[in-house]
């Protein structure tokens, strides 16, 4: 049987690990609340924006020509992979990477073979993962989560839109975790560019009680102004969702870790007590044996 001191040492180390995981769970819970608040704060903006956009597009004639809706032959692709900065959050990051890699092996296989795929990682983990595997990586934007706000995300979206307009990319996809609830994240692969015209005009037909707005300077101009805005919001939303998912994933992972540590502690304590008891029994036997020996002599 293991010796007493060894078991005691292990109990101590497991106890301190449990304290850490417990604390991390608490921190993740607090951060999750903040992440959810951010999503709630963004919602009125995005809802109003789509509302206005629908309103305008419903009355614009069908020729919704836009520089972001041009469909070209797909030669160069950008994949935006949203991960976390820190680990210890279960399968959160690996599921995103798996999805991104499988995209590279199936849908964008050809493009990947001649180096037409650029990975744009958001979050430190994705940056490290793709850099280590020698993918073509644009590392300019990975650090957005240390201080997540719309102003941080905006340049990323603007860069993507600009590159698409210039023909540097023919398609852009977002890979991220969507927040469903604390325990579940839904992996999402979303087409970012080109936008599909139906997407903008979606639901516009039901607008029978449309108000007769004055459009200043013109409908077409407003549509042109609004589309980039809603694209930026799409990227921002992806990062917020991913951020909330990360905290949720970490919370569940740490909760499990705390439980496991508890179980391990129970086992170790049992072992400790058994060993201690065995040692005492052995000692008593020795004393009794010694006394017997003295008596008989």
């Amino acid at each position, binding site marked *: 049987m293991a010796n007493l001191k060894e078991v005691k040492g292990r109990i101590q180390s497991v106890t301190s690990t449990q304290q850490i995981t417990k604390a991390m769970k608490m921190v993740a819970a607090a951060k999750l609340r903040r992440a959810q608040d951010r999503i709630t704060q963004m919602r009125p903006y995005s809802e*109003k924006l789509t509302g206005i956009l629908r309103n305008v597009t419903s009355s614009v004639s069908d020729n919704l020509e836009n520089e972001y809706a041009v469909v070209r032959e797909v030669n160069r692709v950008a994949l935006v992979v949203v991960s976390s900065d820190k680990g210890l959050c279960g399968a959160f990051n690996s599921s995103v990477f798996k999805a991104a890699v499988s995209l590279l092996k199936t849908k964008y296989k050809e493009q990947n073979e001649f180096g037409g795929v650029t990975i744009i990682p958001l979050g430190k983990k994705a940056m490290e993962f793709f850099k280590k595997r020698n993918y073509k990586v644009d590392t300019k934007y990975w650090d957005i989560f240390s201080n997540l706000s719309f102003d941080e995300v905006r340049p990323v979206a603007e860069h993507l839109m600009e590159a698409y307009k210039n023909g540097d990319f023919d398609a852009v996809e977002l890979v991220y975790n969507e927040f469903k609830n604390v325990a579940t994240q839904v992996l999402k692969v979303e087409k970012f560019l080109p936008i599909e015209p139906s997407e903008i005009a979606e639901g516009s037909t039901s607008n029978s009680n449309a108000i007769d707005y004055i*459009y200043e300077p013109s409908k077409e101009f407003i549509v042109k102004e609004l589309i980039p*805005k809603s694209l*930026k919001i799409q990227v921002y939303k992806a990062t917020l969702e991913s951020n909330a998912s990360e905290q949720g994933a970490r919370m569940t992972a740490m909760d499990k870790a705390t439980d496991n540590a508890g179980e391990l502690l129970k086992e170790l304590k049992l072992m400790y007590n058994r060993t201690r008891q065995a040692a005492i029994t052995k000692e008593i036997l020795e004393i009794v044996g010694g006394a017997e020996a003295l008596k008989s002599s």
Partner: protein
Amino acid sequence: MYLEIITPDRKVFEGEVDAATFPGSDGSFQVLNNHAPIISSLAKGDLIYKTKEGSKILIVDGGVVEVRNNHVIVLAESVE
């Protein structure tokens, strides 16, 4: 009329105002009570609104404004 100024990060202002002046793409314009429904895009410039406490100036970095039934909603990407 009721004015709301919203950015993706927060609600900058919300409340009753007497008048509001916007930096429209084709020049500045003012909205008073009972304005006709309008949707206008905004250029970078000063947004001035007047409440009972006095008027306040914000700088918006482009955006869009919707006026409808004395309810004014400003969507801007950043406001200072």
